[in-house]
């Protein structure tokens, strides 16, 4: 086992990995930018080293500084978390060169799977279903032929893209030439690689992904699927396991495909194979995420596996210790990504100082966060500030618990998307499991209503506050971001309605 492990990341995922280290008895090392000196991940770690100024390019993406910190600390392993350098093959290679174990797949596997065209080729060879499409398109005429054959609409995708970036939808022949040219230029400027390919555009599909983990000794285990269809602009917001649309038979096929694909790619450590699932139960390979995912806890809650502990163990050369037959999914788990943004103002990122925080707890609730009173939510980093994960014996209970926990969650100082999550979990379509990747954008509208009984309570509260100020000079914090009194608000009788099985009365911490 490792003598010391450095986490090349920040925020909740760093604490997640440091917790695993502590449970394994491995000293944990944090790195931090100048903006993060007081951050929780720095305080949680046994050791901490500054790796540069606030901008990520100069710190959390700064490979030499991170390797240097690891060497100074005497760390023999680096966990990259997600984001930042986690899918950067050059970083994995730099670790190897420095004699440090990178907790993740080999640089070769990362490179192979990072190229979408190569990845499609490998998966096709491993008999993993892929969407109809092409290899690299060199000649525009080739694209025209392919599109005609596949049928419009089609996608033009950057070979080096990923996570929804570098994708254009083409609806007809007329749009094709222009789209192809633009896509190539964009791909070149964004990824340094002009390679593009054409793929069938699948509509009203679900995003379903399979978590897998592989050790050095030939064991590959698929840990069931997650459903991440609730997205806005390719940004996942809610993930759950199992998928409401996946039958045991589809699950078996998905898991087998993922395991075959991982073997074919020579994959070691944890990874995720993403698929699109259509209404007929057909699924198509999308891409492999060669790292730990944000949403890994939902898999942990239904399988009982500790993915981060297992990542570290297999990176150290230990055998996984369990096989596909040992994997049982029990109950249902759902994750809500809590993001610092203003749901009522076009989901604009919200920055500021957290002046108060109370996180949910109790039965079935797991929180992953690095929140504390006094924390700065800055422009420099991702705006996800916490993950709320709920487990229930069935999907309904998981949703009820998540909803209950959301009502307990209090964050002051920045706006959050908690109101969005509450309404989503109350939505009948979501509660039926009837969503697809465009559901949020096409079918869901955030309400701007205020509960009537809350209106009178707010009036009473304001009257008392006004009287206290006039009498005794009560002091309060100034409003965040100079929020304008929301003109669009209207009162609505949401009280005592029961919608989607969740009663509004009893919203508590009201």
């Amino acid at each position, binding site marked *: 086992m490792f003598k010391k492990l450095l986490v090349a990341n920040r925020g909740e995922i760093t604490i997640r990995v440091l917790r695993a280290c502590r449970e394994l008895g491995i000293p944990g090392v944090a790195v931090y930018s100048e903006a993060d000196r007081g951050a929780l991940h720095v305080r949680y770690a046994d050791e901490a080293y500054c790796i540069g100024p606030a901008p990520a390019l100069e710190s959390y993406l700064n490979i030499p500084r991170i390797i240097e910190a690891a060497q100074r600390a005497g760390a023999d392993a680096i966990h990259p978390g997600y984001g930042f350098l986690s899918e950067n093959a050059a970083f994995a290679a730099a670790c190897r060169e420095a004699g440090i174990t990178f907790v993740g797949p080999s640089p070769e596997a990362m490179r192979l799977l990072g190229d979408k065209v190569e990845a499609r080729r490998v998966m096709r060879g491993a008999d993993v279903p892929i969407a109809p499409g092409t290899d690299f398109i060199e000649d525009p005429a080739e694209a025209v032929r392919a599109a005609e054959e596949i049928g419009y609409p089609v996608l033009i995708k950057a070979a080096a893209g990923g996570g929804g970036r570098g994708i254009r939808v083409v609806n007809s022949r007329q749009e094709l030439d222009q789209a192809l040219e633009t896509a190539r230029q964009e791909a070149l400027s964004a990824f340094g690689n002009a390679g593009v390919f054409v793929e069938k555009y699948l509509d009203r599909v679900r995003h379903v992904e399979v978590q897998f983990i592989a050790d050095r000794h030939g064991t590959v285990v698929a840990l069931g699927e997650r459903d991440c269809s609730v997205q806005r602009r390719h940004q996942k917001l809610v993930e759950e396991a199992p998928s409401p649309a996946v039958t045991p038979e589809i699950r078996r096929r998905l898991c087998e495909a993922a395991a075959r694909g991982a073997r074919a790619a020579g994959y070691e450590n944890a990874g995720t194979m993403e698929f699109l699932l259509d209404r007929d139960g057909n699924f198509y390979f999308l891409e492999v995420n060669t790292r730990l995912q944000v949403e890994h806890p939902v898999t942990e809650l239904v399988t009982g596996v500790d993915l981060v502990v297992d990542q570290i163990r297999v990176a150290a050369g230990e055998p996984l210790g369990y096989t596909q037959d040992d994997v049982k999914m029990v109950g249902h788990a759902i994750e809500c990504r809590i993001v610092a943004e*203003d749901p009522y*103002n*076009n989901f*604009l*990122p*919200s*920055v500021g100082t957290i*002046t*108060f925080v109370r996180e949910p707890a109790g039965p079935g609730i797991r929180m992953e966060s690095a929140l504390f009173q006094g924390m700065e939510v800055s*422009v*420099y*980093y*991702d*705006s996800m500030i916490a993950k709320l994960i709920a487990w229930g014996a069935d999907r309904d209970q998981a949703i009820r618990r998540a909803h209950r926990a*959301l*009502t307990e969650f*209090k964050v*002051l100082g920045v706006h959050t998307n*908690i*109101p969005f999550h*509450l309404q989503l979990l109350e939505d009948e379509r979501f509660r039926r499991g009837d969503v697809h990747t465009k559901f949020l954008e096409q079918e869901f509208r955030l309400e701007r209503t*205020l*509960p009537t*009984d*809350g*209106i*009178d*309570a*707010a*009036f*009473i*509260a*304001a*009257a*008392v*506050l*006004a*009287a206290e*100020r*006039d009498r005794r*000079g009560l002091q*309060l*914090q*100034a*409003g*965040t*971001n*100079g*929020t*304008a*009194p*929301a*003109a669009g*608000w*209207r*009162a609505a009788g949401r009280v005592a309605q029961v919608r989607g099985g969740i009663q509004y009365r009893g*919203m*508590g*911490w*009201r």
Partner: protein
Amino acid sequence: MAVTYQLQIGEEKRTAEVQQDEDGRVRVRLDNRWYDVEVQRINGGEVFSLIVEGESWEFTAVDTPGGFEVIIGPHVYPVAVGGMKTARKAGGAAAGADGTWTLTAPMSGVVVDVYVSQGDQVEQGAVLMVLEAMKMNNELQAQKSGTVQTVHVTKGARVDRGAPLITVA
């Protein structure tokens, strides 16, 4: 001793009277109805506990120009308060005294695109420009219908949080 305020949330209006007797009991009248009220500030901090005739509410509050935002659970109630002797001065970058409205940068970032020019008519809710920050393109909307009076920035400019971007008259 009693004090009276004019309160407003959106379209809803109330006249409120607050009475406190010697032993600290508080009664609040909203229009014609009196409520027995108990308020406790928790630990001198951000959180208040309010019990109105048995109903238990927890709220936090912040100052706004001309009143308070009362935050109950996930809901923010913007309450305009008339009649307060010690109200925070109205004003600020957002709403000018002259009826203009200025879009200010909600965060530091780079102007990716500006969709309007001086003299354009805009509707409330229209996207005026795109600001890149936190690795995302953020569309900034008009909170007022009117005519674009000034465009303070150009495409590609780096702006700090709070910087004026576009003024609508």
